[in-house]
């Protein structure tokens, strides 16, 4: 019974991480495209679209991050301690990027001079790169086996700069760029539909085309980087590799690749259906492929889910609270998104 509960809590933790990777990742991706828009002729239009797309949702995403932390320390205290003793520089970096990002996104809206606007955009864009990279690097360092129980098995900096840490960071950058571009295609379509009614002789840039191409490029980059990282995993962490290509992680790994390919194909053909759902499925499956690939370990080869588990009574309560809360939160979230969509229809 205790084992079932522990696995349930581990599942909830993985789900929270996956939710942050998809929801938060899409947001970070938009930030990355904002940074890259600097070389495009229609920078201002691209940034206006990104502003428009991000404004209503971005603050809710951080909640998934908080859940990941809370579920981790309550469900698996030993894991939380070990990870932070080993990788605190990565988390410190990610946090700083997180606050800078939020602050300068707001600042850009109120900035009056073009130089302060440019500064705000730079800080916003660079921190959009840094945050997902650092968070994912922490997962990579865990997968590499450099995080030991009660502290790192190598010096902290070495654990943080492990090739797998860098590799996971690179996957996160391409994945967020991919999901960001994919969702921005949708936002550009809505934006265009809204402006076409009022403005017949449209001279503006074709933002749908702009992000359609970028989504395809990012999808290919994501798959290429993932392949390299898979080779790295095989070299550094054979048990995780085995779990990902022959164990529980396999179905998710396959799903991830197929979903990303499907989105790329849809973009190629210019078919704008299902691509957002597939994007979420694809990015989420990358997280699941790694997470399920590590089963039964939370720290590969060192600490299992059962060994890391906190007090059984607390874990059961945590699981109960999570289920009750989901029942309350999911309908509310749907209502919020409906209201948001309705605004787009009205405008």
């Amino acid at each position: 019974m205790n084992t079932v509960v522990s696995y349930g809590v581990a599942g909830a933790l993985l789900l929270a991480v996956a939710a942050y990777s998809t929801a938060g990742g899409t947001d970070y991706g938009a930030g990355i495209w904002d940074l890259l828009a600097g070389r495009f002729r229609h920078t201002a239009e691209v940034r206006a679209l990104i502003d428009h797309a991000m404004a209503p949702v971005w603050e809710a995403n951080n909640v998934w991050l908080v859940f990941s932390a809370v579920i981790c320390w309550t469900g698996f205290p030993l894991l939380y301690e070990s990870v932070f003793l080993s990788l605190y520089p990565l988390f410190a970096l990610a946090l700083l990027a997180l606050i800078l990002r939020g602050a300068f996104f707001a600042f850009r809206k109120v900035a009056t001079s073009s130089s302060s606007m440019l500064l705000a955009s730079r800080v916003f864009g660079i921190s959009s790169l840094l945050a997902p990279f650092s968070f994912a690097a922490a997962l990579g360092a865990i997968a590499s086996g450099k995080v030991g129980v009660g502290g790192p098995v190598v010096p902290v900096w070495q654990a943080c700069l492990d090739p797998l840490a860098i590799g996971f960071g690179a996957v996160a950058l391409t994945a967020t760029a991919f999901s960001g571009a994919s969702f921005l295609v949708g936002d550009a379509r809505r934006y265009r539909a809204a402006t076409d009614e009022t403005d017949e002789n449209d001279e503006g840039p074709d933002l749908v085309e702009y992000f359609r191409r970028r989504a395809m490029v990012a999808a290919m980059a994501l798959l290429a980087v993932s392949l390299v990282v898979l080779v790295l995993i095989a070299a550094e962490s054979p048990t995780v590799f085995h779990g990902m290509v022959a164990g529980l992680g396999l179905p998710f790994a396959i799903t991830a690749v197929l979903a990303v390919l499907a989105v790329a194909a849809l973009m190629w053909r210019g078919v704008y259906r299902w691509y957002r759902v597939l994007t979420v499925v694809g990015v989420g499956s990358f997280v699941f492929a790694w997470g399920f690939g590590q089963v039964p370990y939370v720290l590969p080869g060192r600490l299992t889910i059962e060994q890391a588990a906190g007090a059984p009574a607390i874990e059961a309560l945590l699981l109960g609270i999570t289920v009750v809360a989901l029942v309350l939160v999911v309908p509310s979230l749907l209502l919020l998104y409906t209201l948001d969509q309705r605004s787009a229809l009205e405008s």
Partner: protein
Amino acid sequence: MPAVTALDFLAASAPAALLPSRIQMAFTLAYHIILVPLGVAFPLLTVVMEGIGLRRNDPVALRLARRWSVVMAVQFAVGAVTGTILSFEFGILWPRMMGRFGDVFGIGFGIEGWAFFLEAIFIGIYLYGWKRLPPKVHYRLGWVLPPAGVLGAFGVIIANSWMNTPAGFQLGPDGRPINVDVIGAIFTPALGYEFWHLIVALYMTAGFMVASVYAVGWLRGRRDRYHRLGFTVPFTIGAVLAPIQWVIGDIATRAVFEGQPAKFAAMEVTWKTQSHNPEWVGGVMRADGTVVLGVPIPSLDSLLAGFSPSTVVKGLASFNPSDRPSIVDANFVHLAFDVMVGLGSIAILLTLWYAVAWVRYRDLPRSNWFFRGAALAGVGSYIAIEAGWITTEVGRQPWIVYNLMRVNDAVNPVDPVYIWIMFGTLLVVYAVIAFFFVSLLLRLSARWRIDDEGRRGDVDLAPEEAAPYGPRPA
């Protein structure tokens, strides 16, 4: 010199990272706490104001509610960021505490996290809904917010009261909790009084803070219905709660006397265990335990703690030096406690003034001095909350979990340079956030005044569309 003794003590036995870690945690918590009163209690004020507007068909009340909802949402967003930082700081700064006690300590945050999520979603719905939902539906959905905020605060207090009076488990051979009793771990002895003391403080602060904005307007001669309503509703909530808080605070202090005697000794700068213990108003304790620069009221402390002058109060000297707050900590705690009690007493005087005016002329007090006091009551409440938090947290030193784990043993044993760098960066970034936040509020206030004076000729922009994270213009 007490300061030197304390630093010597730190240097001798504490990990080098302890000082910057404590400073950083104190700073980020103190900052976050500023955002909590409005985050938890503002929704009730707003929904009550909306209710008044709907029932009396009063556009002024509705305008106030709508503008308040914008301020509520903006500051909630800032609080979300500073709160996220805190949840990671537990790991970065105090990993050993989390590893040993994360499960029993963390359950409150499990509740708080979801309550916070619910509140975030419904603040979004509330903000979006002004234009997109029927007024009745919008109003009813708004009532989700106050309980969600209270539930979140309840979760955090579960964790904090557990640190002060840990219970609900036995220690296993490896020092980790075993045989955990969930109910016992949640409902620890300190939970009751800490929860009510905090919730009442949050509502008082939100009430006085919001009212103080309109008190300033009142003093500047803007004595219209808008300012009268904006002042009366929140100030009444604060005023009703002030005397209640006096009683709760009294009960809480006596509970600390029973349950955390070392903290109580620090609050009352008591060195020697004795009966007929005086109550020091102000005062600084020196290294030898004598108190200077204060006014002692004979036997009052014993009287308050046990209803009799012969009540024996334990002094700091009766604890092992490694088990009690240092002299420096004790002086912080005592000063903070006095500030909190003093400000609470002033709040009661304002309440009396308000009540007398109401009984005599069924109207607001006429004196400008009342409104000057009310204008300061907002800031005063924030100072009182910070002081109360210093009292309970510094008073628990050197323990992170009372009598079970010292902060020394909880801290991340890293090179302090890293923590100083992180702290320095946070300081700069938090200053930037404060600047944006305040300048945004000022801009909103300026634009709303222009709207009210009818100086704006262009199309009417709904208040919630002026917020940087609000809904798209519909």
